[in-house]
């Protein structure tokens, strides 16, 4: 509980505080098999207009986090604790009515599969207009004009005709553009994009990401980008948070985390990603083992059963003790017992065991010489 650093009053007055500040957030689901700790003690800040990438495998708690911010777990059996401060107001303490007024207006969301996220029985325009009119006392005509305008801005051709079409008449990319139009129609301060490009063709993915980037510049929204795709994060985010087993294991700027990863899990993720510029390594290097069960997390560091460096930490500490997020650089934190000297030593001795991305990228000229 190192949370109470931001006082509510100061954050509310000034614009210098973060837009969103999540403190020690936990989301637990009681099930018949036991308590599922989908998110456990997560904290992060997000400044207005910035993009935070949340990365992790399936079941690492990414989507649960985003739904907790929107309060979509209310009325279910989920136990949500901690603080979610939006401009200083704790969303977890807001009455349902007030939170609902924020949903869609201050915090909007883009979901993974736009076909199932859009209602099949209503026209695209109808659904976007509804998102506008629920927060504005606007006539249908006004809402319609604005909807057409938004469809135009997200790059849907012939919006005046498209507005009356149904989701099944749109292509996958167009549907996701429509979802983005729906999310941005109220000019929200925070946009949560949960795997926004995962269900799309590769060629369309880049278009959607570029669109989101352009619109972010135009609307000034902060974005939480949830994905398992490191390439998407690299393209979009300012900061990255890597999640494992419901906890953040590494946080930092995009450059730090991608080029100087400090947590073995982050290193593993980066090594398991195919790279076009790495000539030397033909085979990918996946992380051995499987993601942990959220009911029975491994003791100590949740990653230790899969970690190649657990023997490098003396005294079986990885198995016995849960590591905290340690400061490992300017604005970079990692949940790992390895010390800076450990890392230097391992890098030195291990002959590429700790091999961060920039090494592999720049080493080809050494070995690329024909014998």
């Amino acid at each position, binding site marked *: 509980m190192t949370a109470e650093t931001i006082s509510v009053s100061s954050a509310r007055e000034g614009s210098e505080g973060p837009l969103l500040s999540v403190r020690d957030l936990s989301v637990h689901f009681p099930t018949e098999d036991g308590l599922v700790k989908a998110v456990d003690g997560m904290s992060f800040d997000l400044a207005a207009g910035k993009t935070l990438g949340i990365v992790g495998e399936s079941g690492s708690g990414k989507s649960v986090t985003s739904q907790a911010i929107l309060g979509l777990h209310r009325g279910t059996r989920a136990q949500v604790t901690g603080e979610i401060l939006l401009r200083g107001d704790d969303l977890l303490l807001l009455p349902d009515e007030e939170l609902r*007024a924020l949903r869609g207006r201050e915090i909007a969301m883009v*979901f993974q599969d736009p076909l199932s996220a859009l*209602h099949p029985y209503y026209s695209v325009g109808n659904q976007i207009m509804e998102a506008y009119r629920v927060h504005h006392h606007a006539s249908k005509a006004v809402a319609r004009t604005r909807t057409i305008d938004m469809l135009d801005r997200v790059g849907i051709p012939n919006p005046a005709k498209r507005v009356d079409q149904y989701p099944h008449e749109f292509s996958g990319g167009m549907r996701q553009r429509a979802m983005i139009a*729906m999310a941005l129609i109220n000019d929200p301060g925070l946009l949560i994009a949960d795997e926004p490009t995962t269900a799309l063709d590769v060629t369309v993915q880049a278009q959607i990401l570029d669109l989101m980037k352009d619109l972010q510049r135009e609307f000034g929204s902060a974005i939480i980008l949830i994905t398992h795709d490191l390439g998407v994060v690299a393209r979009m985010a300012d900061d990255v948070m890597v999640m494992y087993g419901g906890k953040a294991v590494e946080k930092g700027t995009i450059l730090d985390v991608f080029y100087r990863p400090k947590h073995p899990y982050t290193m593993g993720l980066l090594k398991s990603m195919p790279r076009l510029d790495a000539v030397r390594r033909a085979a990918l290097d996946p992380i051995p083992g499987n993601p942990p069960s959220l009911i029975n997390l491994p003791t100590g560091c949740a990653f230790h059963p899969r970690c190649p460096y657990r023997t490098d930490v003396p005294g079986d500490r990885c198995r016995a003790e849960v590591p905290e997020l340690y400061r490992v650089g300017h604005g970079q934190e990692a949940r790992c017992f390895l010390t800076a000297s450990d890392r230097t030593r391992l890098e030195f001795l291990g002959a590429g065991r700790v091999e961060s991305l920039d090494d592999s990228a720049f080493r080809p000229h050494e070995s690329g010489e024909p014998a």
Partner: protein
Amino acid sequence: MFAYVVRRVAIGVVLLFVMSFVTFLMFFSGPDPAKFTCGKNCTPELIEQNRKALGYDKPWPVAWANFVTGIFTGRDYPNDPELKQTHPELIARCDAPCLGYSHLVNATVWSTMKQKIPVSASLALAAFVMWIIMGVAAGVIAALRKGSLVDRGIVGVALIFYAFPTFFIGLFLYQYVSLKWGWTPVPAYTPLKDSPGLWLQGLLLPGLTLALFYAAGYVRLTRTFVLESLSEDYLRTARAKGLAPGRVLVKHTMRAALTPIVTIAGVDLAGLLGGAIITETVFNYDGLGKLAFNSILDLPMTVGIVMLLSAFVIAANIVVDCLYAVIDPRVKVA
């Protein structure tokens, strides 16, 4: 859309045609059909007389062709131009749409059925309204309170009503609720134009008998559809937009959940329009169901009722298909 409707209707007409053929094949390729034209007091002479009069002495494909022609042009029983010249009083004229002639009641099938249709239609409509209200409401409540005692109670009670035979529920309501306890007047049919109040009052118990059975099925259907709709991603989108729970439920959940129910309900209603045999018999309602029950030994009447019922179901299917094209934008009408 217009082309879609026209095509549906055309298919419906073809279906009716096929249906009449199958009906004839079924009833006329078996043992002597003329035996089933004179009820319980058949004599060999009467059978022979009816066979000639109804044209059953001809092979069944010819009888079928005459039947189909008769629907459009009307026909004479017996079809004997000579006799018509000499003894016109012995000829029974059956005007279009001629569905046959019953020697048992000495009337054309259509004129007999025509009087019964309002009774069965009233009953079907009353039952329909009751079962849709009860079944859908209970189903929605059960789905929203899934797993609770309320849900289990509703599903359990529905199962009981589904399992009880209609005649049991009917007789129970008639014997106890009406006769013994006197909670309602003894149900009897009053035409709507005579007295709307009495019409409604008379329909209460027989309508309820049918409605309880049908509602039991609709509870489970509705519950399933609502639960399915509740788990859809687009409901999360609706909530994420900031919509009020009531609006999410009515506009987003119900629209998706109730659309398939329209299809099923339409066809069920049509099936009932053709008469509820047991309920009409128990409550002594003079509708198509009771007519069908009393016409077991009256083949021309049975054929007519089967044809009318098929027509109802086929028509209902056309209506439902067209309605579906309107309410579900994904249905291709082109």
